[in-house]
């Protein structure tokens, strides 16, 4: 298989051509440094992203409280995580960094608040 991608590990943005027969044998071309290779491998084997969203605040100084995953999350888990996030409803007080969902689907990733939610 072959896939073209852009390395985003630094601003140079090398255009990579990634070819592989099986997952143990991934060949990367076009990278100017070793980081490009590990980036490409992770993108093929287990792409991860930090998820940011907002959660409804039932009461408190703001209507929506921003949240994020504390680590990048496997992409496949993201749609289900978003559904859970949109069903949450928070009540003050909540402090920045507070864990709202722990160890999501056993991935070791937590959902945390990125802002304080104070009482009005």
């Amino acid at each position, binding site marked *: 298989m072959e896939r073209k*991608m*852009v390395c*985003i590990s630094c*601003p*140079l*943005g090398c255009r990579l051509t990634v070819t592989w027969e099986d997952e143990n044998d991934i060949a990367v071309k076009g990278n100017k440094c070793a980081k490009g290779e590990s980036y490409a491998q992770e993108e093929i084997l287990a792409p991860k*992203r*930090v*998820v*940011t*969203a*907002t959660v*409804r605040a039932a009461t408190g*100084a*703001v*209507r*929506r409280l*921003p949240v*994020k995953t504390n680590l990048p999350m496997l*992409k496949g888990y993201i749609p289900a995580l*978003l559904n859970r996030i949109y069903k949450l409803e928070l009540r003050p007080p909540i402090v*920045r960094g507070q864990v709202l969902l722990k160890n999501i689907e056993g991935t070791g990733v937590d959902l945390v608040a*990125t*802002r*304080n939610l104070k009482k009005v």
Partner: protein
Amino acid sequence: MIEKHYDAVVFGGGSAGLAAAVRIAGQGCSVAVLERENELGGILNQCIHNGFGIQRFKEDLTGPEYAERFIEMVEELDNVSIFLETTALEVTHGTPHSVFAYSKRYGVIKIECRAIVLAMGCRERNRGNIGIPGTRPAGVFTAGLAQRLINIDGYIPGRRAVILGSGDIGLIMARRLTWVGVEVLGVIEIQGYPSGLTRNIVQCLNDFNIPLYLSHTLSEIRGKDRVTGVTVTPLQDGKTVTAKSFDLDCDTILLSVGLIPDNELSRKFGVSLNPETGGPFVDAGLMSSVPGVFACGNVLHVHDLVDYVSEESERCASFVVEYLNGTYNPLLHHPIVSGANVKYVIPNKYLPGMTNRFYLRSLIVKNKAELVISLEGEPLKRKNLAHVQPSEMVSFSLDEQDLSRGSESREKKLEVSIY
């Protein structure tokens, strides 16, 4: 009318205003921060995505996290007074300056001060600024307004969206819309290259298979009450190829077509503005053409990274303190101008005898570029740049030693070019 006195007044409580206020107050001067909204933090409050603070805090923070760190610092200082829901309206400059502001709580207030820091941020360019033909239905938003509606007010602006312009805010919004269940049909960019960061193209468009139409433009907006669709037309050699136009059925259009420093107020009281940046002309200490009036952050020039805004604003504040102490001498500053392939360089002056930090924007896209600073035509310093593009701000410094090289001319004009 309530009257107050402070050493310095800061217009705007975003990242620029907060960093400046913390630094000025930290040096023992009294400061008032005037903020139009009902909370501090500015644009950062609605930028819930990560990517902030990597340089400043060596951590990948979201906008609200970055803002709260500064808000907490400012709240700890007892010589900073915060006026929320207070808009600076008018300035009569002199010694002292008089600031007139409207506060929701106190009505009109008059503040006398010796220094002013402009930190009002920027505005988004809208449909009127770019002129798209067609009807004027509801459903056309600037990308930043849509960001605010979704992230602060919790309101979803439509079902099927098209984004015009590939600036970072538009790209970030493509992902945000997708994640709240809005279908994004495409991003239309008039230039042949995207104007946002590659990282955002990859993570906000490619991840969701959202098409990016480079060298395309919106040739028509349709719909009576609400947007019902748009016509997209490719460009070849700068001309539209109408025969290859296609339609997209959307109910929402987001415009991400650039930001302009918000200087209505500054212009009104006589601050002279630089047409290249839309912000004030400033000397080496970031003081504008009006003595005692300084500027930092997006009101000075549009920044892509908040880390640079904080650095610039703290530097600005140190000069404000010098000004308040009576040790600031603008007559010692010399001009620095943009040369080949440079859109602008900020500040517009430098001061020999100290380290001067500059920000500039390239006009070209290039790998392995070279930055050349020359004094009256003679190269003074060179710096290799791995990669330049208009959307990524470049910074460099000149220290005392760089600047000690003699020139007989009294003007000592520096020129910055990229090759």
